[in-house]
């Protein structure tokens, strides 16, 4: 165990599952009503809804800003010199755009791609980078934060935080609702969820079915990503607890390597799935007069 404060394996694991939480201390606490950083897992728990996971949200925004900075630089250079032979980063970004553009076009029959394609690009790269943080050794950055900066809790993989994944999924969901209503009108949208699949005489049944189907989209989207990444992170943490002796430590090292190699597959795959499903859901929102 690299992190030294904990004494038992349970403490170690529990410590790794607590976010750096900034929020309002609950009534009854000695600092009740005040805003501040939670100093323990139970305190963070007690803050309830009025709290922010500074670490995961910070890493999430930081990663997005990081890649958007490079994308913007490529865009500026592309605007300045459109005919230049693309090299290095521009080549990478252009091929990425090309792939995503082709994919969106194949799924999305509506001619207006101006919103969906950039969204797909953002989602893919962002989720990819969030997942990629899982390959950083579990204790490296928390250790630096703890002993170098005095930050007690530090979770660096944003996609292991359900707030982040559900935030993405609900954003996509709100876009689904928005575009559904914009394309079909409020009446059309309500008709779609009321009169399908069994005609108007079974309206309540239809409504229940369609609403569940609609709500299943963001839930499955967000929870799939969270579940995959959280479990992977958990396995990294469990492997990290094996570094107690030479033999078990070596075994742990081997396992960590093997799991990381496997995880290299999971990182882009989950990002890709999240992106494709978002595009497909949005395409359905644009679909008019679909006959079930």
């Amino acid at each position, binding site marked *: 165990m690299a992190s030294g404060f904990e004494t038992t394996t349970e403490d170690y694991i529990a410590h790794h599952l607590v976010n750096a939480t900034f929020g309002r201390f609950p009534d009854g606490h000695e600092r009740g009503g005040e805003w501040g950083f939670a100093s323990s897992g139970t305190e963070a728990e007690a803050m309830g809804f009025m709290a922010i996971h500074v670490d995961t949200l910070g890493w999430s925004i930081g990663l997005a800003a990081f890649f*958007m900075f490079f*994308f*913007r630089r490529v865009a500026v250079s592309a605007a300045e010199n459109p005919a230049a032979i693309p090299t290095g980063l521009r080549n990478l970004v252009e091929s990425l755009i090309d792939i995503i553009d082709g994919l969106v076009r194949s799924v999305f029959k509506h001619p207006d791609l101006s919103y969906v394609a950039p969204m797909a690009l953002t989602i893919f790269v962002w989720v990819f980078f969030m997942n990629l943080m899982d390959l950083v050794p579990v204790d490296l950055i928390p250790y630096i934060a703890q002993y170098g900066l005095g930050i007690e809790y530090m979770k660096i993989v944003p996609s292991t935080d359900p*707030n982040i994944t559900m935030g993405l999924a609900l*954003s996509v969901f709100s876009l689904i609702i928005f575009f559904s209503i914009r394309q079909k009108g409020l009446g059309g949208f309500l008709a779609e969820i009321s009169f399908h699949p069994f005609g108007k005489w079974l309206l309540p049944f239809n409504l229940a079915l369609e609403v569940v189907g609609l709500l299943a989209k963001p839930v499955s989207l967000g929870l799939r990503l969270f579940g995959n990444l959280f479990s992977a992170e958990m396995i990294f943490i469990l492997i990290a607890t094996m570094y107690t002796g030479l033999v078990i430590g070596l075994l742990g090292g081997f396992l960590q390597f093997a799991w990381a190699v496997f995880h290299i597959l999971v990182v882009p795959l989950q990002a890709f799935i999240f992106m494709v499903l978002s595009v497909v859901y949005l395409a359905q929102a644009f679909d008019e007069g679909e006959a079930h």
Partner: protein
Amino acid sequence: MNINLTLFGQMLAFFFFVWFCMRMVWPPIVAAMVARQEQIAEGLETAERAKKDLSLAQKRATDEIKKARGEAAEIIEQARKRSAQMIEEAKREAREEGERLKAAATTDVQQEVQRAKESLRKEVATLAMLGAERILERDVDAAAHAEMLERLAADL
């Protein structure tokens, strides 16, 4: 592990970054890609056209060469004919000149012969006169017999 304000923070960040990507990243890059695609298509088209032009020019050049070659052959043929003609003419002229010269020479010779005959005739008359004088041992009246001698000389 609980749901809290982070959710909304993430949603706000999502909308901001998607907006940023949509406004500041996607359009210029796609525009550049489209521009480059057009440029490449244009380049290919130009190359195709140039290739066609080249083949046309080559064909024209081959035609020109063929024509030039034909003309040259014709000129050479004409020259050959002309030279043969000139030689023939020269030969003919030479022959004529020769014949003319020969004729002139023949006339000269005949005139010479005539002249020689004439002088011989005169000599013979004189000699005959002398002979006769000697034979007669007397002076012959030359003037009296001249006419007779002239006739004799003309008969020779």
